[in-house]
């Protein structure tokens, strides 16, 4: 088993199961791992059903949002289809005080933070620059610029350090920060700079890379000579490669990394090997650059299917699944209704939240713009 370089094992190129930390196989069987099995031992059937529910409802949200884009209700939608285990597993390992910097596909992580996902729709409908208060759930706004938030996360983590919220031993006080990004972002300067700063400062940050195999149309093998997690060792950041479609393994490795961060052990780089089953966004057509055979292969490794197989084998009643389907249907309807009722935002809102405090220049621009807009409205009314 060649899986990580944290525990003295030799890294290896490839994405076979043998190369990944795995606790739940494709066929839904639990496997033992000497380091990580103990970290999920406390998850009983009810907890597993909870993880399953998380994934199913997040997928429904994602599917509905994709359809809403096709209805003309959203300008754009980035799907998280296929990445639910990586997002739910890692997200459920977080403590309330931990802080997340997502990119733009982390709907599942938002869900675990308690964010009402419908708020995500505001931005993609073009009515808001964000959609939620980052402080409310310790979940920052989506970052559309690839990888830039890895720096924000590192800086935030260094702030946490300076606040003294690291290594106190108080489980309610010690904080970790997580930056979520994709395989493509590892090619960006920002991510590499973030790794440099995080490493030398022992910043309490976890770099959670969802390697979904495709940076839009660019496959991972055209971006790296080595498995992405090996990037970590060059920076002096412990790294681990996990089966990103295994919700339990994602939970376990993230929990370990968070503990390292909170206790003052510094950053960790996690590569969660998963697959973007949908398009990059609704503007993309993946059939132009990848094969049906590849998509079919990953369909057999669906993260939701394997947990379902496990639950069924463990005796979860069919009523659980039926009730969940009904819940998902009702949720889908709520999402559609909500999306169509999102009000048109006042243009002047673009001036809000630019600076934390009052700002003279922004204020004068706001005043000018308000007057300018009022002029349009008057003219329109007279016609």
């Amino acid at each position, binding site marked *: 088993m060649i899986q990580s370089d944290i525990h003295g094992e030799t890294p290896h190129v490839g994405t076979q199961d043998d190369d990944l930390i795995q606790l739940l196989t494709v066929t839904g069987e639990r496997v033992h791992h000497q380091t990580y099995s103990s970290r999920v031992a406390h998850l009983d059937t009810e907890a597993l059903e909870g993880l399953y529910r998380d994934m199913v409802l997040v997928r429904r949200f994602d599917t509905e949002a994709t359809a809403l884009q096709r209805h*003309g209700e959203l*300008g754009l939608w980035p799907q998280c289809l296929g990445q639910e285990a990586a997002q739910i597993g890692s997200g459920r390992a977080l403590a309330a005080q931990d802080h997340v910097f997502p990119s733009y596909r982390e709907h599942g992580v938002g869900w675990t933070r308690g964010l009402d996902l419908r708020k995500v729709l505001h931005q993609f409908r*073009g009515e808001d620059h964000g959609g939620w208060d980052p402080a409310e759930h310790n979940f920052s706004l989506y970052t559309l610029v690839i990888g830039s938030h890895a720096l924000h996360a590192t800086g935030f983590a260094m702030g946490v350090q300076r606040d003294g919220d690291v290594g106190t031993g108080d489980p309610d006080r010690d904080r970790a920060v997580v930056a979520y990004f994709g395989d493509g972002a590892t090619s960006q300067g920002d991510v590499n700079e973030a790794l440099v700063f995080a490493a030398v400062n022992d910043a309490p940050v976890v770099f959670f890379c969802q390697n979904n195999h495709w940076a839009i149309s660019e496959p991972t093998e055209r971006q790296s000579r080595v498995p992405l997690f090996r990037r970590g060792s060059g920076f002096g950041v412990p790294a681990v490669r996990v089966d990103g479609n295994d919700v339990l393994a994602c939970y376990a490795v993230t929990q370990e990394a968070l503990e390292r961060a909170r206790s003052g052990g510094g950053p960790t780089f996690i590569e969660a090997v998963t697959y973007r089953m949908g398009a990059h966004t609704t503007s993309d057509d993946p*059939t132009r650059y990848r094969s049906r055979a590849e998509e079919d292969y990953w369909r057999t490794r669906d993260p939701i299917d394997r947990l379902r197989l496990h639950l069924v084998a463990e005796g979860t009643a069919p009523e659980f699944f039926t009730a969940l389907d009904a819940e998902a249907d009702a949720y889908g309807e709520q999402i559609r209704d909500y999306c169509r009722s999102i009000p048109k935002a006042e243009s002047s809102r673009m001036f809000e939240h630019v600076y934390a405090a009052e700002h003279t220049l922004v204020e004068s621009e706001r005043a000018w713009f308000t007057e300018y807009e009022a002029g349009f409205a008057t*003219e*329109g009314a007279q016609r």
Partner: protein
Amino acid sequence: MPKYLEFRLPDVGEGLTEADIVAWKVAVGDVVTVNQALVEIETAKSLVELPSPHAGVVSRLLVESGATVEVGTPIVVIDTDPDGEAEPDGASPAVASGSGGSADGDAVADDETSGDVLVGYGTKHAAAARRPRRAAEPAETPTSQAAPSPQPAPAPAAPTPAPPSGPAPVSRPTAGVSVDAGAAAPSSTVLAKPPVRKLAKDLGIDLNRVPGTGPGGIITRGDVEAAAERSEPERQASYPADDRPWLDGGVVSADGRQTRVPVRSVRARTAEAMVASAFTAPHVTVFQTVDVTKTMKLVARLKEDRDFADTRVTPLLIAAKALILAIRRHPTISAAWDDATQEIVYKHYINLGIAASTPRGLVVPNIKDAHRMNLHELAVALGDLTATARAGRTTPAAMSDGTVTITNVGVFGIDTGTPILNPGESAILAFGAISERPWVHHGKIKPRWVTQLALSMDHRLIDGELGSRVLADTARTLADPAQGLIWG
């Protein structure tokens, strides 16, 4: 009462302005559920299925398959309350836009939230209803409005002045939505004042076809009147009913003697590919006539063969196999010219292209790694490829990275042709019609099944000798399929 909701064509990519309606998946009267596929559309970026935003009964399809539709155009009306009571006095039903556009009565509230593009950025009609305050802008003059071309050149700015005898196309109101849409969209580059535009519209003159003689190329009233006069004498149709469009989406000219059909995606791509190929690769074509009687016997036997019961065995299958065998003997023909790097790319595989005539135009999908297939696998692949192409479902991936192509012109009953290379490929085989002809066989004239083959090659990298050998070997297997045992 029945509640009718319109569905407007959304912008499924970022900033797209139009899409082609490829195929409706529903018909009037069908019951649809939310997110059921309604229609397949093709944009500049991809083929996309649009899911229904409403549950209900399809009341009207507002655009036909094949039409090009601007984003924001209503394409279908769905009755979301078909079991509701009819309106008391039979007034015309209120139609509400599905996404906040114009609404009637108590249906979806009307506001100015969106224009053509329903959400997000892009073209916005709502903005056009507002005007900046007068103080903010200097007084407008016609010239300032028509200012995009900076130089005051005397040359007429009208894009394509019609040839003197050229009739002016005009839309026929009977011709349906697509025709209306085609003619109604005015070109923004035409310079003409509003009254002149109105006159042209009333007379059915397309301003794109009128040369402007006014200052800066502006089309004057006189220009339009002259254009109308020119088309007047040609207005007689030469035979009954020829003033109707012959082709979907076409616009009949004013004299009823021509139909103009906008170039759509597949046609446009074919045109680009053929021009690129014909004017970059110097083509040379070699011909051979061959007695394929034994191939015909083999085809007849394979049709009886149980192993081939699930496929359609045709002479094209044997021709494909014969060509593959010939290429394996002369692999350097499976190559491409890389002009950018000044290299010849030799391909260690054969992705065998098959030119397929489909309702949407010519497409050339290829059978990947055809050299690895046995005859049965090849037959299955050929059948799948043809069926997919006819259904209009050929993917861009299926059309990329071809190496050598066969065009089966014989199905149209003709002897052969000089095929143009599929761009990026080095050879193409035309397979002519197979017919019985008098032929010298064992010293006597006998009726034999004979066909003609033509092989075009890119002479930059393939010399006549190589092409001739490939053609001769292909012909040899077709003349005696047993040769395949020796070469296979």
